[in-house]
């Protein structure tokens, strides 16, 4: 097979000339692994011995009863090593880097999940590792920074622009354009120049392959709907791809509605009318930008969905109406998180909780013998600083204050 560069009118590879050869090599290496069944075997072996694949499909009995409609199943990507689906992509690219003979990896990270996964992979494979992270995010996500450093990675705070994910991506490209001989850029989601969107989606497709088998075994037939949150698009594509040709399954991507689509403070690119087609960070998709083509600030309670662009593959599926898109607001997310913790003893990441919101809205109207799957892309305990803050928990505040006192002495 050959890499698809365009998905409908979306995608492409808008890269500086200095990276032309690097991408040629990457593409060749990708095609090689893609066409080599031994690679997928090696990948499966790694993921089942180093991470916890197959991840379980959990039947959420209490939530199902609570809503009284569809039977709700949760695909547990949170149980991956490092706590999110990000590991699937990163470990796969790690194997690729080994084949390419490179010795250094770089990555961008927003919430820190992808950075942590990359630092982990680098430790495991013995690569040098630098992680670019917006200065704002470094400040907000100190625990992840701490672990990355402890894994031996260098975390480089990016002080430009909005000091968040998109700026970290630019900075990673600037590094790559200098060090391409030794270095592979481990892109964290199904965005960026080809072959990243396709390659990342392919590595993540393990989610949907497992989920299909599991739902057939547990429920006896395919689900009516699948819900996944959409940041760059990797976890949603990961679970969606397997079901694209299944007529009985509707696919629902949920974007970050932030303070509401009307507020302008959100990160919704495919719902609401605030995004428009554009070309940035090496690819063409729907971007949150102003009429001059300058990228806008985005907002979401979840750092991992707080991004200006979206996978070109999803933009295409959106245009073709093969995937339906919805948005969940910050406050809906906290509510869904709360209910899920109380009813099932499960703590979704704030990102993942977006998918829960939409599933909860729709489950009551489905039949009892319908199943829906929520892709739980990651675990929420990484978000304690954000979540405890969002709840305004006074004991938490007291805890932090007393810790600080200890350090201020």
């Amino acid at each position: 097979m050959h890499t698809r560069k365009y998905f409908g009118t979306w995608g492409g590879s808008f890269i500086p000339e200095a990276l032309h050869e690097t991408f040629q090599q990457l593409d060749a290496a990708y095609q090689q692994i893609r066409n080599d069944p031994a690679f997928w075997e090696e990948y499966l072996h790694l993921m089942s011995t180093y991470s916890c694949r197959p991840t379980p499909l959990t039947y959420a009995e209490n939530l199902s009863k609570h809503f009284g409609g569809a039977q709700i199943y949760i695909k547990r990507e949170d149980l991956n090593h490092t706590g999110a689906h990000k590991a699937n992509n990163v470990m796969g690219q790690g194997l690729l880097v080994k084949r390419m003979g490179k010795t250094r990896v770089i990555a961008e990270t927003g919430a820190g999940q992808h950075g942590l996964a990359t630092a982990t992979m680098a430790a495991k494979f013995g690569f040098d590792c630098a992680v670019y992270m917006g200065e704002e995010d470094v400040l907000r996500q100190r625990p992840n920074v701490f672990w990355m450093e402890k894994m031996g990675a260098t975390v480089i705070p990016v002080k430009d622009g909005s000091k968040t994910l998109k700026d970290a991506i630019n900075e990673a490209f600037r590094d790559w354009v200098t060090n391409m001989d030794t270095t592979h850029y481990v892109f964290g989601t199904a965005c960026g120049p080809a072959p990243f969107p396709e390659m990342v989606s392919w590595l993540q497709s393990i989610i949907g392959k497992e989920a299909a088998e599991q739902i057939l075994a547990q429920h006896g037939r395919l689900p009516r709907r699948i819900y996944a949150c959409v940041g760059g698009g990797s976890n949603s594509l990961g679970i969606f791809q397997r079901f694209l040709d299944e007529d009985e399954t509707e696919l629902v991507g949920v974007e970050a509605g932030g303070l509401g689509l009307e507020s302008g403070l959100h990160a919704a690119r495919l719902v609401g009318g605030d995004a428009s087609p554009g070309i940035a960070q090496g690819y063409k998709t729907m971007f949150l930008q102003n009429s001059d083509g300058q990228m806008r600030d985005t907002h979401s309670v979840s750092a991992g969905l707080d991004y200006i662009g979206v996978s070109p593959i999803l933009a295409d599926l959106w245009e073709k109406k093969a995937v339906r898109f919805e948005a969940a607001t910050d406050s809906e997310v906290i509510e869904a998180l709360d209910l899920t913790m109380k009813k099932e003893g499960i703590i979704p990441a704030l990102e993942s909780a977006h998918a829960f919101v939409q599933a909860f809205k729709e489950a009551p109207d489905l039949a009892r013998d319908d199943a829906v799957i929520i892709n739980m892309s990651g675990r929420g305990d990484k978000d304690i600083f954000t979540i405890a803050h969002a709840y305004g928990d006074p004991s938490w505040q007291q805890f932090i204050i007393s810790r600080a006192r200890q350090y201020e002495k």
Partner: protein
Amino acid sequence: MQLEQAIRSKKAGKEILLMTHIVLGYPSFDTNREVIREMVENGVDCIEMQIPFSEPMADGPVILKANQDSIASGTTIRECLDFGAEMCATYEIPFLYMTYFNVIFKYGEERFLDKARDAGIQGLILPDLPPEEGAPFMAAARQRGLAPIMIFSPTSTDARMRSLADFGGGFVYCTARKGVTGRHSSLDADFANYLNRCRQATDLPLAVGFGIQNRADIEALIGVADMGVVGSQTIKLVDEQGSAAVGRFIRELLGGRRSH
């Protein structure tokens, strides 16, 4: 091709030409005006005016910051196009636009090209638009007499250079090294070899940029390239000493040569 002729005829009487770079609206259009006047009066042969973009992935810290500050202070594409027209009307040297493709894409490709042509702009430098993505746009530019400037990198193979050259016009922008703008380049044996490869690949004039900072760098280009390009260095100078310092810097770069 208009730009190529201009470059060739300018080069005829000189050891080497000089192209400089400014970021539009940074720190202000007024300063841009003064800086350009200093540049032209002191002998610069060609100027690339960068229309700022929020995500300038190929630029280093100095130009990056200039882009962002310009946008933050409210610079619009309309202002940039108007200013470009004003400069073309004021000075005789060739002016180019440098920007990232999204700016043009959002504005409308045809509409942008028409505006640029009408203003008298002679070429376009778009670091994130390789011919694989931009061939039709490049053709449309050429139709309007706007030269799509191709970029060679030390990582470009000979074959790749030859293929790029087919899409280009005006001159070829050879980046002196890998990486982004701003950091000083060492113009060593590898560099000579690289420029030699560039020369083999195309008959177009060769401009060399990325990290060209002083007269010594320019001298090193004499005989192997047609034009030196100074970017970040002027911005830093204006930041630190104001636009008035630009004239003397340009004269130094040109080894004392005065404007014609």
